């Protein structure tokens, strides 16, 4: 009996340790980024593009990468939502619940969201060559759109699924067509859709491996979609491999900016979904 009690206590202890070990890295990561990033961050980082000796440690900032990342992610997210919304409505309203077609589409989206971003990057590169494009913002937008589309579809799908069947039936009984019922559904889950969109945007802005082939890198803010663009993760990655300490410090500062943007997006996504789903 005493042995059994001891085993119980021992494994409870082990579980608490595991819980601690799982939570620890999150705080360590944020702590590391804060400690390393705060000393080297200044206003020039976010208001200036790289000047002449930037990569030797002279003045300048990463505005080119911030702007590039925003252009890229915002356009890709808008495109992905434009593709995802019809797919999700098709899955939930036009197809019957439990239909084989819907199951197949969901399965494919699950599989696609598991595909690593480097594979999408390689595919984006092939598409780029196929259409005779150069490395450019446009090629990056196409790649990132394909990358985040499956995730967007699946998370929006989960949101729309929460709509009760009765709401649809009530809408039909008033004589609505399916597309009109879809509008009712969209209005009902709008906060959820916004949350899904924000999460996709977060994924788009943080991804480096898919754009490494397609967007290129530049010190300027892109003026059109046919120009190459810098992105924040790649800027961090390149600056980090520099042998000069000042440049590496700036990579930490850029990492702090990226982390801040991501946490802000995740937090507002969660805030919107909590606030509105509890109310309705």
């Amino acid at each position, binding site marked *: 009996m005493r042995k059994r009690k001891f*085993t*119980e206590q021992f494994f*409870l202890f*082990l*579980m*608490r340790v*595991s*819980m601690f070990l*799982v*939570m620890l890295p999150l705080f*360590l*990561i944020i702590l*590391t980024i804060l400690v*390393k990033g705060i000393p080297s961050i200044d206003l020039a980082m976010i208001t200036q593009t790289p000047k002449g000796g930037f990569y030797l440690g002279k003045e300048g900032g990463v505005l080119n990468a911030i702007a590039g990342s925003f252009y890229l992610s915002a356009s890709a997210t808008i495109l992905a939502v434009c*593709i995802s919304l*019809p*797919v999700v*409505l*098709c*899955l939930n309203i036009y197809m019957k619940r439990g239909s084989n077609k819907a199951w197949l*589409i969901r*399965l*494919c*989206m*699950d*599989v*696609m969201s*598991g*595909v*690593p971003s*480097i*594979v999408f990057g*390689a*595919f984006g590169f*092939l*598409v780029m060559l196929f259409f005779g494009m150069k490395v450019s913002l446009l090629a990056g937008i196409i790649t990132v759109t394909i990358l985040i*589309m499956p995730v967007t*579809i*699946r998370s929006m799908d989960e949101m729309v699924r929460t709509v009760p069947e009765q709401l649809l039936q009530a809408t039909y009984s008033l004589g609505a*067509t*399916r597309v*009109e019922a879809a509008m009712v559904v969209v209005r009902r889950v709008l906060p959820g859709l916004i949350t*899904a969109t924000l*999460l996709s945007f*977060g994924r788009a802005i*943080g*991804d*480096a*491996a898919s754009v490494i082939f397609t967007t290129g890198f530049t010190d300027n803010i892109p003026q059109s979609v046919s120009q190459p663009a810098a992105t924040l*993760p790649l800027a*961090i*990655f390149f600056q*980090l491999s520099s042998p000069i300490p000042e440049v590496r410090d700036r*990579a*930490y500062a850029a990492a702090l900016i*990226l982390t801040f943007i*991501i*946490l802000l*997006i*995740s937090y507002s996504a969660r805030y919107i979904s909590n606030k509105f789903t509890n109310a309705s």
Partner: protein
Amino acid sequence: MLALLRIWVDRMAARIFSLFAWFSVFLLFIILAGLVFKSLPIMRSYGFADLLFSADWKPLQKQFGFLPFMVSTVYVTVTALAFALPACTLASLYLVEYARPRFTNAVLPIIDLLAGIPSVIYGIWGILVIVPFVRNHIAPVFHADTTGYSILAGGLVLAVMVFPLMINLLVEVLRTVPRELREASLSLGTTRWETSLFVVLRKALPGIFAAVILAFSRAFGETIAVLMVVGNVVKIPHGVFDSGYPIPALIANNYGEMLSIPSYDSALMFAALILLVIIILFNLLSAFILKSLHVHRYSV
């Protein structure tokens, strides 16, 4: 007249919506076909087995052996799971079986935050914390000589990266175990741990298996974070303190020279194809297991 217009709009919407839906499915096959098409030249001139099981990687002399990269990838992934699986299983057991609901509800969103952090940030953390830790604290214990940029460092960073995915999935899986089973077991006089081990974990075994496969495939394709800490040396690693060179890192590091060396682009597309095929197979397998357990994969 208006009614006809509404019906027409509805029919058109049906067509457009399903067009989009099938397009998105079709995309997966286009990606697959594109990569197969591009890697055909190298498969034809070297043969499948030669590419996969040769250890000579000298693109300039037209030798493309993927064995060092495959072994590195498997090494890093297995190391990651060796850390992540026990930690996540125990942690999710704690969250589902022991902890108060308030604690669980507070912890899960925090773990989701971890999932949103970009891989380049994990990479920086790996360079600043994990690599020195491996070099100064872990390696001396085993009398190993290493720079710290090693399979072990890559595995540790990857383990942290798959924590959120594994915990979320395992919590979902453990929650599908009916409460009656636990009550029946406890009423026979078992302790909580015995119930967890012999009833809950046992019942959840297929789900845990599915979670492991998913985590495996996530770790398999992770690029930037691993690339930053794993050392990138082309040779077959002989232990966790050796440097490795996983397939995704190979693709990401060499995109620059891709078009200047003959058959190099084809070789890299072949590498991407290997990743894609393995991940499709793994994901299909876990999807079927999870479907039989009625677990939704995404719980946003």
